[in-house]
């Protein structure tokens, strides 16, 4: 099989190297200091806008659109760039309809939405426990979903049940972690430690399933477990869009409460926050966002862990606006990871999860270097 992997494409390799350098620069020199902001008023509504977050959000949104367009244009089947965009947007049908509208378009939309969900989920969990090394994949929520989904795949149940099983697994794992961590309230550190224990346990379950069942069944499950966007469909888009439509506004509302919760339980209660209710809400919304993604594309690692750091380094501490920026950056990370996964060893295609993990490892080390405090 090794001989089947062709040489890496120099263009993609160059693009990866350039984005690596840019991201490392961002992480090395976090944004601190003056933040120009303005007050927005409209009738009885008002909001505070940090100009830096506004222009960064605009820029990242533009990058997201550019990457989506790239995803429509590039691929094994040659489609002229202009024709690809036309087929996707205003001239549907025609000779490229299947390649563009059934294969590539749903795939880029799934990558965009899934990246946004994962990054938002990570930002919620990191703010909740005020620890930058936390994300749903580390505390076992992804693993729980994967264990459930693999069990379904391996016992030969209808594959259509897979998203349901994954979602159920993620929610059930979150509930178990939460209940085990509950001691007259939930402390952040306890939540993380319990989560790490559960994660190890569930990883063992997955290993057991992998050795217990015949190799043909296992290989399909293993591909899914690495997180792949290859099978993305418009139905996936619908699931992700519905999840994001419900959970992102909830996360946005919670951002303001999280800012208060970060000051510690006593100060937060004194400021009028119902601390435990807020924690439960954050865990439910954060797990829900991760669960939707696992159900659709499998347990993609590192997006939830890394993207909130990049957002923080660019724009500062948590606000609603920074959460929007985080979601957009998540879309950018997953879109580019998927492009790399498709093109780096073309025509051999990697699962996107392999690329996010390969990008994630070095960044995790860079982050550890930057934080001087002990965990």
């Amino acid at each position: 099989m090794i001989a089947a992997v062709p040489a890496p494409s120099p263009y993609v390799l160059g693009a990866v190297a350039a984005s690596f350098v840019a991201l490392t620069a961002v992480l090395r020199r976090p944004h601190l200091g003056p933040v120009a902001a303005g007050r927005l008023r409209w009738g009885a509504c008002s909001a505070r806008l940090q100009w830096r977050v506004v222009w960064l959000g605009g820029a990242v949104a533009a990058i997201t659109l550019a990457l989506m367009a790239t995803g429509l244009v590039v691929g094994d089947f040659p489609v002229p760039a202009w024709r690809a965009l036309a087929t996707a947007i205003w001239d549907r049908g025609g000779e490229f309809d299947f390649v563009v509208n059934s294969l590539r378009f749903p795939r880029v939309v799934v990558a965009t939405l899934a990246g946004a969900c994962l990054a938002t989920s990570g930002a919620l969990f990191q703010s909740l426990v005020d620890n930058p090394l936390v994300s749903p994949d580390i505390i076992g929520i992804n693993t729980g979903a994967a264990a459930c989904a693999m069990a379904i795949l391996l016992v030969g149940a209808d594959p259509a049940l897979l998203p349901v099983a994954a979602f159920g697994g993620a929610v059930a794992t979150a509930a178990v972690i939460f209940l085990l961590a509950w001691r007259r309230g939930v402390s952040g550190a306890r939540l993380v430690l319990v989560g790490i224990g559960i994660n190890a346990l569930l990883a063992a379950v997955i290993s057991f399933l992998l050795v217990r069942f015949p190799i043909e069944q296992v290989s399909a499950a293993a591909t899914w477990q690495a997180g792949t966007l290859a099978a993305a469909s418009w139905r996936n888009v619908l699931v992700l869009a519905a999840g994001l439509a419900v959970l992102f506004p909830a996360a946005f509302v919670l951002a303001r409460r999280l800012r208060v919760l970060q000051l510690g339980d006593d100060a937060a209660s004194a400021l009028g926050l119902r601390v435990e209710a807020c924690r439960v809400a954050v865990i439910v919304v954060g797990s829900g966002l991760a669960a939707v993604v696992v159900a659709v594309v499998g347990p993609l690692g590192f997006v939830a862990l890394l993207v909130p750091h990049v957002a923080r380094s660019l724009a500062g501490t948590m606000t609603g606006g920074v959460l929007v920026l985080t979601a957009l950056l998540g879309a950018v990370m997953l879109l580019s990871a998927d492009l790399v996964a498709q093109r780096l060893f073309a025509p051999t295609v990697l699962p996107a999860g392999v690329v996010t993990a390969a990008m994630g490892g070095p960044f995790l080390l860079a982050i550890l270097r930057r934080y001087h405090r002990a965990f």
Partner: protein
Amino acid sequence: MPSEEHGLRAAGLSVGYGGPLILEGLTTTIPTAGITAIIGANASGKSTLLRALARLLRPAGGTVFLDGTDIARQSTRSVATRLGLLPQTPRAPDGISVDDLVRRGRYPHQRMFDQWSRADEQAVRRALELTGMVELREQAIDRLSGGQRQRAWLAMALAQDAGTMLLDEPTTHLDIAHQVEILDLLVELNHSEGRTVVMVLHDLNQACRYASYVIAMAEGRIAAAGEPSQIVTAEVIQRVFGLAARIIADPVTGMPLCIPERKAAGTDPRRS
């Protein structure tokens, strides 16, 4: 006429953390627009009293009344607009600026669609001015000195704009100059804005100097309460701290100043 009542009081308040009671049947009225200091030995229940007054603890018995109504029956947010708290060693998230911290103090006044009103902006500016933090407002909290950091947290509590402020040992970990600076600032706020200040203090002499009302706690009960010049006597110090002391007049303020007695003639290390 309970609805006309204004201020904070406790009636028959008992608090325990599921075990033996820390406070037992405690009744007190906090003087409105005054400065109250809660003093007492370690584990005498002074922090517990402050936390119960702040609604952070659910009483095992008795009631805390804020403006005439049981504080436990009021909405958390409505309490937060009238009662502020500065915890003992507050912890700020990594890398946040003074301005960001102080803005978070506006939480009880904000609504889902009314998140940053003119009043919010003005309250933050005023809190920064009152604490002298305007110039440092873009600094990261973790780069400030201890005294500056405490002033930043005080500004956060001020931005909350509550008529009554509870402070748990606001001067711990500060050197003497910064202690005096913070306490002077609290007196100034009390005078200029008429805010009610209630603080737990470790230093008895500071309590005498800065407070208009002192609550001395011993073993979960109030051992003595009143103006410092009336209640700080050798007998009360003996009862509250188990310490033989001589009370003289502070040469600067004329308030009582507590000087511990030497235990025995031979215990002064310099004379041994």
